[in-house]
Structure formats: structure tokens, C-alpha cells
């Protein structure tokens, strides 16, 4: 930001940040009707009288959505409430077909959770105030139509998609911490298959509450709500901008206004969306069309038992069980898929450390280069384990191993087949090497004589010739020994 505030001034302040994250639950159907939640279908093709809010229709809760939301609550160490309740949040907008959004208000699904983030080598626990369920709104399309200057189109496909809103405590102090929190939260939700967390498709959205105060002050400053922080990059940039804006204002003796601000991606700044005076009165009241959501101990236990291992637990286990470094454990557990892949390779007999090296090096690099895809689709875990075994046993060189890997990645063929077909096998047959050395000695009587006359430098010449003749596949140690022995006569 071109605020021109000096680093000294910035350093005198501390930011207080809380995030409100909306994640789309990974259900096949919407939260209150049977319509599909599929992304990218033709506009208004996944709609019915219920999600269009036609007069007389009623919502019926999708049990799977409740299960996923409870799973998320448990993963975030939150207290799942035995009895929670939907409420109506009333406001007018064309993307809201009933004139109210069904959400949870005074009785949320879960409260008092936390999530640990690792930052600068330090572990910090971020409180989670509440987690509640709600329905998504439709999508207003203001651009892209011939009459977009005069008309807005509305696609109701997204309307009624189940969401969880996860509200953090104001425990975050820097944009980087906020980013780490969002990354950890995203990874957790992906891991437990509660959400795709696809920010481009809008299945993960983030708003922030931001205030600043002079360091050492006990009291929070006036906060603003910043909306539309829908990528990791924008999150950090928008928070930086907003923090500096607030500091600059305070430095000039101004007051911070409590308001909702919108992150303008193109302009790279936050802008006033509505002030406190114009804040909506949502007139929340309990949704009379739905019964309270009751989650008893038995159901909670079932959901808990179906819970996949969480990322933090997996990282710890990788260190303890496979002897990996913390760094390796973090890289390998970045996604559940990669972690599962690593475990499959190790399970197929590869040494864990070697498996980690191959995956973090060759595999991730090639996956990234090819812009693809699931690792197991390119190389079956057992095949990677087989390749690692060949290299470890010295059957082929590490250099050959990388070339074999490349071929496996491209063709999907088994390691053994590629090694055999393309002659990558290292020659360790002493008879074969002896035959080659003798051939060369016959071809080079002069050099043989030189060696025998005491010029030991010629040895290197002979080794080089053998390696060339075997296209580098001869076992170098064996070649050395054989050359020495035969030259000695």
C-alpha cells in the first residue's frame, strides 16, 4: 500500500483479526430439497419449487448435510449442541427467493472449538466461536448478456446449496497468521471430505473482521468487516491494506468507522460497502417450518467413528511411525491423496525415507510440470516401490532410476518392463564385464604396455572405455576391480 507509513509506526500497532469462513458441504443434493448441487450445469437447471421458494413450499433438512457439518465441528474440536435450531435471516435481494435465508442464529450447531496453526515454527491455537449451517443464495449475473446494461439475470442452481459458516475468535494477529489459519482450515475440511474448498468455484469463501490497536493496549479498536476475500492471495493483501488504512487513519487522528467494506480486487483496496447506520436489521426468528436439529450421543458417536484421520494427527504419526522429519511429514500430508499415496508406497516395501525423497522430488515435480492429476493414476504405488527397490539394491543406478521414473510417469508401464526393454539394468555380471575389458585391451595394446610400464594414469582411460561400451550401465566398482586385475596380467 502506498500509505507511506513508516515501518516504525506500523510496528507500534497490533492487528486483531477474526475470520468468517463459508464452506460448501459436499452433498449430492441441496440442503432443503432434492436438487443436485453440481457446479457448472446450465443456469436454472437444478431447481425445483422448494429451492425457488414458490408459495406453499417447505424446507426439509438433508440429513447428510447435518452429518457433514457435525463432522466438521468435531474435527474443529467444537462442542456439538444436542439441540440447535434454524432461524430466518430476513432481507430483500433477488438472489434470495424467499426474502429470507434459512440459517442458524441463537442456537448454532457447535460452539467453542479450536484449530492449531503452525507459524514460524510455533504452534498457536486459534479459537473457533461457532459453526452453523445455512443455505446458499442464488447467483446474480450482472454481466455477459446482450442486455446486461439494463437487466440482471439470476441463476438459482446454487440457491439452497448447504453451507457451514465457521467463525473464528479474534485470535489472529497478522495477515500471515490469518492465511495460515485459512490454509489449515481448508486442509482440514478437505481431509475429512466435508468440502471441496474450491475457492474458484466459490465452495470456500472468506470474510474478515479487522481492527487495530496500539501494542500493549488491552482494549480492541473499532472493527470493520471486509468481504470478498476469496483467494489466499487476496486475503493477505486485503488484510495488509485494511490494517495499514486503519493505522493511517488513527495516526491522523481520525476515528475508525464501524462498517462493512468490500475488497476491490482490481483496485487493490477495500471500499465502504455499507455503514453501521445502514446495517440490515435481519429480524432473526426461529424458522417455524423446521424442527430443532437434535444430535444425540449415539449419532455423534457414529459420525466420530466415520471421521478420517485429521492432518495434524497424520503429521504426528508420520514422524513417529516412519521416522520422517517434520518437514517431510508436512509436505507428504498436504493432501489426503498424497499422504495415502506415500503410505501405499511405503506399505509396498519401499523404505520410508526413500519413498519420501522420491515423492517429494521426482513425483511432485513431474505432477506440477504436467499440471496433473492424481499420483496413483500416473504411477501405481507398488510400481514406485519396485523402482525404489531396484535402485536401493544397486541393480540400476540412481541416474537410471530417474530416467526409468520419467518413462513410468509418461507411459504408466511397470518399472521392470521399462528397465528390461530399454536396457537400464546395471551390468553386475563379472563375466560380461571381463569380456568387455579384454576386448578393449586387445584393441589398445599400446596403452596396456604403458600401464604395465608403470603409468597408472592409463587406468582411468580403460575404465572410461568400458563405461562407454556399456552405455554407463556397468557397475563402476566392478569395472574398476576388473580393469586393475586384468591389466596387472
Amino acid at each position, binding site marked *: 500500500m502506498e500509505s507511506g507509513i513508516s515501518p516504525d509506526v506500523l510496528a507500534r500497532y497490533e492487528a486483531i483479526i477474526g475470520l468468517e469462513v463459508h464452506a460448501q458441504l459436499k452433498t449430492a443434493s441441496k440442503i432443503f430439497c432434492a436438487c443436485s448441487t453440481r457446479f457448472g450445469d446450465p443456469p436454472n437447471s437444478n431447481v425445483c419449487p422448494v429451492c425457488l421458494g414458490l408459495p406453499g413450499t*417447505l*424446507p426439509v433438512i438433508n440429513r447428510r448435510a447435518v452429518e457433514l457439518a457435525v463432522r466438521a465441528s468435531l474435527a474443529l474440536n467444537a462442542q456439538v449442541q444436542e439441540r440447535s435450531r434454524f432461524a430466518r435471516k430476513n432481507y430483500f435481494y433477488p438472489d434470495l427467493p424467499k426474502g*429470507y435465508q434459512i440459517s442458524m442464529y441463537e442456537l448454532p450447531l457447535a460452539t467453542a472449538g479450536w484449530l492449531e496453526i503452525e507459524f514460524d515454527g510455533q504452534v498457536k491455537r486459534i479459537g473457533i466461536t461457532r459453526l452453523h449451517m445455512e443455505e446458499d443464495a442464488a447467483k446474480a449475473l450482472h454481466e455477459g448478456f446482450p442486455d446486461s446494461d439494463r437487466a440482471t439475470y439470476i441463476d438459482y442452481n446454487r440457491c439452497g446449496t448447504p453451507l457451514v459458516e465457521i467463525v473464528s475468535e479474534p485470535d489472529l494477529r497478522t495477515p500471515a497468521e490469518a492465511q495460515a489459519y485459512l490454509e489449515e482450515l481448508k486442509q482440514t475440511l478437505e481431509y475429512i471430505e466435508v468440502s471441496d474448498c474450491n475457492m474458484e468455484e466459490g465452495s470456500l469463501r472468506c470474510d474478515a473482521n479487522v481492527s487495530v490497536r496500539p501494542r500493549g493496549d488491552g482494549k480492541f479498536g473499532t472493527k470493520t468487516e471486509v468481504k470478498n476475500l476469496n483467494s489466499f492471495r487476496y486475503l493477505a493483501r486485503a488484510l495488509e491494506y485494511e490494517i495499514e488504512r486503519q493505522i493511517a487513519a488513527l495516526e491522523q487522528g481520525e476515528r475508525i468507522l464501524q462498517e462493512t467494506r468490500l475488497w476491490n480486487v482490481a483496485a487493490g483496496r477495500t471500499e465502504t460497502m455499507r455503514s453501521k447506520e445502514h446495517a440490515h436489521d435481519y429480524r432473526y426468528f426461529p424458522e417455524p417450518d423446521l424442527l430443532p436439529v437434535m444430535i444425540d450421543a449415539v449419532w455423534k458417536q457414529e459420525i466420530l467413528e466415520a471421521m478420517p484421520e485429521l492432518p495434524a494427527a497424520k503429521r504426528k504419526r508420520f514422524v513417529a511411525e516412519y521416522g520422517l522429519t517434520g518437514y517431510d511429514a508436512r509436505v507428504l500430508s498436504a493432501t489426503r491423496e498424497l499422504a495415502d499415496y506415500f503410505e501405499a508406497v511405503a506399505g509396498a516395501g519401499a523404505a520410508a525415507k526413500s519413498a519420501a525423497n522420491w515423492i517429494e522430488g521426482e513425483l511432485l515435480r513431474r505432477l506440477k510440470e504436467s499440471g496433473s492429476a492424481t499420483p496413483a493414476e500416473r504411477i501405481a504405488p507398488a510400481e514406485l516401490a519396485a523402482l525404489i527397490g531396484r535402485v536401493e539394491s544397486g541393480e540400476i543406478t540412481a541416474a537410471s532410476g530417474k530416467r526409468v521414473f520419467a518413462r513410468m510417469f509418461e507411459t504408466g508401464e511397470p518399472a521392470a518392463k521399462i528397465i528390461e526393454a530399454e536396457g537400464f539394468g546395471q551390468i553386475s555380471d563379472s563375466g560380461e564385464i571381463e569380456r568387455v575389458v579384454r576386448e578393449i585391451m586387445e584393441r589398445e595394446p599400446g596403452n596396456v604396455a604403458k600401464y604395465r610400464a608403470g603409468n597408472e594414469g592409463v587406468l582411468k582411460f580403460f575404465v572410461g572405455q568400458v563405461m562407454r561400451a556399456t552405455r554407463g550401465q556397468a557397475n563402476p566398482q566392478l569395472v574398476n576391480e576388473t580393469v586393475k586385475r586384468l591389466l596387472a596380467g
Partner: protein
Amino acid sequence: MTNDARLTVAGIRADLAAKKISARELVTEYRSRIDRENPGLNAYLALSPERAFAQADRIDRMVERGAELPPLAGLPLAVKDVIATRGIPTTCGSRILEGYRPPYDATAVERLEQAGAMVLGKTNCDEFAMGSSNENSAYGPVRNPVAPDRVPGGSSGGSAAAVAAGLAVAALGTDTGGSVRQPGAFCGIPALMPTYGRVSRYGLVAFASSLDRIGPMTNTVADAAALLGVIAGHDPHDATSAAVPVHDYTAEIEKRVAGLRIGVPREYFGEGMDAEVRAKVEAGIALLERLGCRRVEVEMPHTDYAIATYYVIATAEASSNLARYDGVRYGVRAPADSLAAMYRKTRGTGFGAEVKRRIMLGTYALSTGYYEAYYLKAQKVRTLIARDFQQAFEKADLLVTPTSPTPAFRLGERTTDPLAMYLADIYTVTGSLAGVPGISVPCGRTAEGLPVGLQIFGPHFREDLVLRLAHAFERAGGSQV
């Protein structure tokens, strides 16, 4: 078939099976009655001849095949216009939904048609069921067939008038604070409000979601029992519909009433009640005693707060329920330059005065700073009123009260005084708040010949008892007391 022939569900089914009449003839006959009478009464807002004839032909083919006829075979049915009917205009008596045709049927309508009923058309009502006289309809008031200068009651005035005038054999009404029972009383027909949750609300256009109920309005209590048997029961489309087993009401109503304890709450016989109504209801209670019922006095101390409680809760919910009529997706849109102006003009011209009044009342009651004092307080009082009923049902099997403090009043008599109109709901809103079932059954007539209604309340899901007592009362000549 003569004009004044009062057909019944069982009678029609028997006549069809015996081939004394065909379903097609029935539809034709009712069509001609409607053509003749409706211009004067204004009971129907829309007719659905294609659908009625198609259903009639289906029934007639069953008769031809000698198939077992469904329980409501050939029943000429009217449906209140706040209930969704696929492809048939459903305006809720409002300008804002002029021309709106739902793409789906309400569960109750679907079940009635599956049971053989023939939907003749949609009946007039107060706009979005808000009113007690049917004068709040955007499509003009309905006249009471008993006394054409008087209101038929509301909000299900069109349904009551259609049945009472012989323009349908049965009708669906909806009851939020008395909208089935009071017009039943004014027009002199039995009209049942089932327990909240007994009948699916799916397709009932919401006025006040925690109070709205669909109920049958019929010529006889037995017909009400037959209709309830079809529409009652859990519906996967309505989370608030109960999975409580459904009685065989048609069999239950034949059981003895002698020995039943009938509670008479003192609070329902206070000031403001018309003297003739009081006399008729007392005569009705005396008749029940002659049938062997035991009169017990009960107290319902929170009755005085019912009107205020009802109007806070009902308007609060209405303010939210009616937000969807914004001109964006269906119904009427008043074009304007901006979104806010479009909303204002659409809702400003689309809604009538009473609907706007209630939206404003409800919006106020839910607003920050007032929510606790109004909405939350009203919910607490609602619990107390429900407890009154619970305690009364410890002493009595059923409660008996007047349905309305007065008989049908004159058209225009109360339109300038909304508060007087609200206060007339005094005897019906209590049962609405408590969620219990209640029926209004004809209980004699005033000197001028205006029908009086006797209201019977029962415990939750005891429609069997309510209908049993009402049936015995009707058979013993209750309408003549």
C-alpha cells in the same frame, strides 16, 4: 338431482357404484349451479373444468370396470385459493399473485384427488388468509348464502359459501386463527381445524407457519371425518407434519358419547357475546348433556391474552412469509428504474391494506429492540395458553365453547375498525395457539335465521373424539336447537 339436494361423500359413492349417476353428470351439474349462483355469491375465483372432467372420466371408467371405488369417488370439491393447485390459478385472493399458476399440487389436494375427489375450482378468501369476513379479498367480497347482505366469515369465506350454497359438496379451507371454524359457523356448516401437524402444509401458501392448518368444510360431520381420513398423516415434504397414526375417523364417530366429560370454560362466556349466541350455545350444551355427556366447569386463565399473543406471532411470521412476493420470479411486477423502486411499487400496489398493516406490525415485532418485548414474550404467553388447554383436558375430555361471539355481520359493518375485527377472533385463536384440534358445528339459528356455531376442542391428535361428539350433536338435531 334438485338444486337443494345435499349430497354426501358416502351417498355419492353409493350412487356412482349403483350407476344412479355418473361422475361426469355430477361435474356438469355443479358447473351449471356455479354458473347460476356464483356471480351473486363470488365464492369461486377460478374454475378447473378440464381437471374435474378428466377426474370424473377416470371415476366413471372405474365404475364401468366394476372396480372398488376410492373413498371420495366423485366428490365435487372446492379448494381455497391459498392452496397450490398445479396449473390452476392460485392467487391467495391477492393482486400480487394475479395469474400465478403453481407447477405443483399441495399434498392435501394430491391426496384428495388420489381418493377420487374432483376439483371444481378455487374459492375466494381474504387476501393471504388475513381477515375474518372475506372482505379483504382483492377480487371482491363473498356473500353469505344464508343472508346475502352478510359476510360469510373469513378467511375461508368462499369455501364456506360454496358448500353452504350447494356449489360443492366439500371444500378445503385453512385455519390460522379461526379461518375455517368461523366461516363454518357463519354459513351453518361443520368446519374442522385438525391438530397442528395432523395434515401436511405442503402447498398451503404460508400466512403464519406455526399456526396455519388445512381443514375440511362439509355438509356433515361424517364428511369432514371422511376427508380428514384422506388428508391426515405424515408427509415427507413437511417437516412439521406428525408421524402420529391416523384414526379411522369414519368408524370412530359412531362410538358412544355418553359419559364424555365436556368442559365449559368460564372465560368463553364473558362480555361481548351476543345474547342469542349465548342462548343457542347454552341450548347446545344442554343437548349434549341430554346425550349423556357430563358438563364440567374449567378455567382457562390466560384466554384474555390470546388475541394480543396471536396477532404478534401471526403478523411476525407473516412479515417474513410474505417477503417472497417481490416481483422478481412470479406474480405481478411493477416495472421501475431501480431494484428498490421495483420492490416498493410491486409490493405497494400488489398488497391490500390489511396485508400491509400486518406486514408492518410483524416487521415491528421482530425488529431489534422490540423482539424480546413482543415476539419472545408472545411465545412465552403462547406456552401458558397451551398449558391452560393441557390442564383443562385433565378435567374434561373435550371443551365446548361458542365459535364466534356474534353471528354473521353485515358486509361493510366492520371494515373501518380492524381492531373490532381482530377481537371477534377471541374464541378461535386460543386453540390455534395451543395447536389443538377444533370443530365448529351448527348450533341452531338466531331469530333472524343466522346460523350459530358450537366449537368443540379436543386434545392434540384426538380428532376422533372431536368428530365423535360433533357427529352425535349433529345427529341429535344440534343445528335446530
